[in-house]
């Protein structure tokens, strides 16, 4: 709250300074030409090696004290970024998708995390989509909430109204919303009142991811925003990846062009395996998404 007020004050002061500069400084001085822009061009880009980076984002519902690398992932999104073009795409995978898990027969895909940690989950997703992730991020929902709060919330456009009697009794109306950390978590987790069940939930997770990217891109120009964000992640991250690498990834995320973000959810049928309800994913469709996105992180159509 204090930071928000500080930012507001700073913005107002800056606005006043700019207004005074523009009005008072004579046009023949360097100072005035420094402040008045007639024509503007803009370019940006980030070099990551490789140009295309694939990140498997996993939301874990691990309870406090549980090892989040040995529970079932609750949200699965394979996110691709093309740092050459600024395009990004997300392929949503229903958590109950019944697939082959290397070395463990067939099971729900989210069980791969339980059986073999992020590496095995990445392999299972790779087998389904045809693209193996370069990184696997696993996060607990409380940290996810904190992270969204830390960046100042996110803006989303909700295509359908939905609710949950426990997580969000008043629900989310269709339309635009600014979500804080808790509401972003609820938006991404609610399933029961959605007509499309887990498929719609996965689509909602993509809306949340797009909202996070939107906030990061909008605020990346603020002094210290990316540096502070990386430091926050480092404090909550269990990883051997160097901070310098995270800094590069964060800058790449900030440079994604929101207009070039696409996303699809792997659809499927329903089946009963050993008394448990599972989703039988349309593998051809999953492979089609992978094939479309593999070279440029773009999916033309779902």
């Amino acid at each position, binding site marked *: 709250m204090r930071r928000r007020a500080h930012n507001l004050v700073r913005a107002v002061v800056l606005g006043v300074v700019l207004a005074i500069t523009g009005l008072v400084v004579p046009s023949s001085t*360097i100072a005035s030409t420094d402040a008045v822009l007639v024509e503007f061009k803009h370019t940006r*880009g980030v070099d990551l090696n490789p140009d295309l980076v694939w990140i498997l984002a996993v939301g874990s519902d691990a309870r406090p004290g549980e090892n989040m690398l040995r529970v079932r992932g609750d949200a699965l999104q394979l996110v691709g970024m093309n740092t050459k073009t600024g395009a990004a795409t997300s392929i949503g995978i229903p958590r109950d998708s019944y697939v082959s898990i290397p070395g463990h027969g067939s099971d729900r895909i989210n069980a791969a995390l339980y059986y073999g940690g*992020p590496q095995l989950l990445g392999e299972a997703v790779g087998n389904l989509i045809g693209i193996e992730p370069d*990184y696997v991020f696993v996060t607990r929902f409380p940290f996810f909430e904190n992270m969204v709060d830390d960046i100042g919330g996110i803006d989303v456009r909700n295509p359908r109204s939905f609710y949950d009697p426990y997580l969000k009794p008043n629900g989310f109306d269709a339309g635009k919303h600014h979500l804080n950390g808790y509401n972003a978590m609820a938006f991404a987790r609610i399933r029961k009142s959605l007509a499309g069940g887990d498929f719609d939930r996965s689509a909602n997770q993509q809306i949340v991811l797009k909202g996070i990217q939107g906030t990061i891109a909008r605020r990346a120009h603020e002094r*210290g925003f990316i540096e502070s964000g990386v430091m926050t992640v480092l404090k909550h991250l269990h990883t*051997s990846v160097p901070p*310098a690498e995270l800094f*590069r990834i964060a800058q790449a995320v900030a440079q994604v062009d929101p207009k070039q973000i696409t996303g699809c959810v792997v659809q499927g049928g329903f089946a009963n395996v050993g008394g448990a309800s599972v989703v039988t994913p349309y593998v051809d469709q999953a492979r089609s998404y992978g094939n479309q996105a593999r070279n440029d992180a773009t999916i033309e159509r779902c």
Partner: protein
Amino acid sequence: MFLTPARAVRAALATCASLVLVAGLGACSSDDGSEPESGPESAPSSTEAAPGIPTKSTIGFVKGRLKPDRRKQLRIRVTKAIDQWLDAAYVAGDYPRNDFSDAFKPFSQGAAALAKRDKGLMSNADVGDRVDTVTAKARRLRIDVLADKGKAAGVTARVVLLLELDGEVRRTDRIAGRLFLGYSGSDWQVFGYDVKRGRVA
């Protein structure tokens, strides 16, 4: 949160190996992409050698611990890299000129390829042959730092260059934006940018 580092580790090993081979180094001084503990303290500030007015550079926002002497060293080395770009791309050289092949030397290979795609903005390539003189009226650099364990791990360099062009093309341009730098194993290198160029007069 957890992150599988297979590719990063491979990249680090490859970088280390190629450094040993190419530069004849005995060992990689830093395996985490951050600046090594003991860099060349004597790295000259390019502001001394830059033509025209010098770049006024400052350390801005620092997230993490970084001792004053390391801040100073970082400022000198980042300023050197940015000056190398500003001079080769805009300020230095005999105008009229149409050779800007050295403009992106302090850029990584991929970033240089991206910048060449935008060479009209990231250099004077589009107007160089119609300009007789180029005068820098302002050169400012503010360096924001991500530091981890006392070492700089990433840098955002905020640049403002006010450029007076004279000749067939006669105008004043303002080039401003952010450049993202990482430590390449021997020096600070630009791996990304978000830059605007505007005609102000």
